[in-house]
């Protein structure tokens, strides 16, 4: 399909803001922090940026405009995306498309949220946030109110998938726990991770406070203040910059717009079609992947993607996770910075940042995947109906 774009574009800089609980921060301030950090990483002055594709909290209108204003930039192309957690990889796909179309040359892609801060400056803010979170859970507000039946929140929607997977394939709670624990071990090696200081054992996981069964506390991602940013440009331009470019070898998207409850979408997700497109563009397959940076809003969503990206057979995600494959040193080191379950939830942007860093071999031996030449990052949103995939390789 789009194989002619393979390896023609690159990520030339990555950055992130302070992460976790950053009292008093705002999504905008964090976004600027991450953007500046990515520009420094690339060795680029702001003047080199002529595209902005950013996403902030969903209740902020024109986030990209505000980011551009703060950075003092006029650009050839900019927009904010609205595909939930699929938006962040989509921003990179769109950046490539916009450069290819001649609209701009070098694009700042970013995501920021102040999910912790905005719920902690007052009790009133907390309740208001809760109510708006609950309101989001309506499957179709104008036609049928799921809230009338007590269905609230993202955990429940995803837990439907986990329950069905358990009943269809015999997936167990301990297998979900293996994912939470593997990512926590990675966060323990990442001093910036929100859960860096907290060990998680299987016993602690099992005793986790029930939220919406089959999910407990440790199956759910974190409430985080964070921003991540990457800079995308052509491979040609990339060669003049400070860091070794990370090649964009493949990408794909798919949207099960028919809905989460339709067909078997909750146990065979849009990651299947999205990853196929990315593999096809890159000319690579699951066995070529050295590092997996997976969108883990909930443990189960990481598990099902192990299957949907082809790392194991459908239904085998549980045993695969339990085998230790996901740990650093395992067959498929996954979420090597801790993921959204333990590093911090930045809607998949930090997955992209980490994938690029692993490909550049930025880390010492405690965190670096030794042979990392090919990394996959994933993102999904809209309650896991829309998906985006990114394959990065070393030059």
């Amino acid at each position, binding site marked *: 399909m789009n194989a002619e774009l393979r390896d023609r574009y690159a990520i030339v800089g990555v950055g992130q803001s302070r992460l976790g609980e950053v009292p008093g921060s705002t999504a905008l301030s964090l976004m600027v922090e991450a953007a500046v950090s990515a520009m420094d990483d690339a060795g680029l002055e702001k003047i080199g940026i002529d595209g902005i594709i950013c996403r902030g909290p969903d209740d902020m209108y024109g986030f990209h405009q505000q980011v551009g204003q703060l950075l003092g930039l006029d650009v050839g192309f900019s927009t904010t995306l609205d595909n939930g957690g699929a938006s962040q990889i989509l921003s990179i796909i769109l950046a490539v498309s916009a450069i290819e179309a001649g609209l701009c040359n070098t694009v700042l892609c970013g995501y920021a949220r102040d999910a912790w801060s905005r719920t902690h400056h007052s009790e009133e803010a907390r309740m208001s946030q809760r109510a708006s979170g609950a309101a989001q859970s309506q499957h179709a507000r104008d*036609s049928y109110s799921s809230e009338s039946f*007590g269905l609230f929140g993202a955990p429940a929607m995803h837990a439907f998938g986990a329950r069905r997977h358990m009943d269809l394939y015999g997936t167990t709670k301990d297998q979900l726990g293996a994912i939470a624990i593997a990512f926590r071990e990675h966060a323990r090696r990442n001093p910036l991770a929100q859960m860096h200081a907290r060990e998680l054992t299987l016993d602690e996981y099992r005793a986790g406070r029930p939220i*919406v069964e089959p999910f407990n506390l440790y199956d759910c991602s974190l409430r985080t203040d964070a921003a991540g940013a990457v800079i995308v440009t052509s491979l040609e331009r990339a060669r003049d910059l400070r860091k070794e470019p990370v090649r964009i070898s493949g990408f794909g998207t798919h949207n099960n717009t*028919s809905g989460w409850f339709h067909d078997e979408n909750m146990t065979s997700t849009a990651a299947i079609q999205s990853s196929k497109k990315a593999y096809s563009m890159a000319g690579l397959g699951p066995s070529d992947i050295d590092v997996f940076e997976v969108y883990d809003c909930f443990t189960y969503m990481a598990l099902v993607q192990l299957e949907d990206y082809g790392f194991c057979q459908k239904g085998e995600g549980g045993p695969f996770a339990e085998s230790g494959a996901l740990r650093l040193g395992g067959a498929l080191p996954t979420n090597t910075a801790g993921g959204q379950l333990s590093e911090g939830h930045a809607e998949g942007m930090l997955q992209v940042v980490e994938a690029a860093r692993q490909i550049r071999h930025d880390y010492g031996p405690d965190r670096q995947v030794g042979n990392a030449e090919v990394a996959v990052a994933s993102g999904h949103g809209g309650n896991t109906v829309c998906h985006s995939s990114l394959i990065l390789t070393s030059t």
Partner: protein
Amino acid sequence: MPSCGGERDEREFERGLVDLKIEDASEEALLPPLPQITEETRPFWESCEKGVLSLQRCASCSQFRFPPSVICPNCASMDHSWEPVSGLGTVFSFVTFKRLYHKAFASLLPYVVAVVELSEGPRMVSRLVALGEDDSLKCGAPVKVRFERQGNELMLPLFELVDAK
């Protein structure tokens, strides 16, 4: 649009600040959020008033659909009728709420919300009632509709196990 966002804050949970205070729930006449009735959904809720579950059926391809919509997702016809359905189905998937999101559900905790696949095909979210102490519920369990009025307001189509005592 439902989010895939982070929900968890361990310190909040530990402090017990997240959950609403249970004692508030004893206040009278606490109703769950009720649906906004629109021109598309009115026939559905009017049928519920009579204790009958009705769905839209496409006049062109005969497929039942839910939630209510102006267009058939199968054949794109905009002609339809409303027809009573059996009220029978199976549990496609289910979750058990252990955490309170709305005071109206405080006395029900823990409660089970299911995606029910109706015999006629469409899937709908509902709450399962009369489950008793039995925790052996599995996907695929047969269920039937059971209407319950919410306060003095509308009748909600809830579901119970077919073999419920």
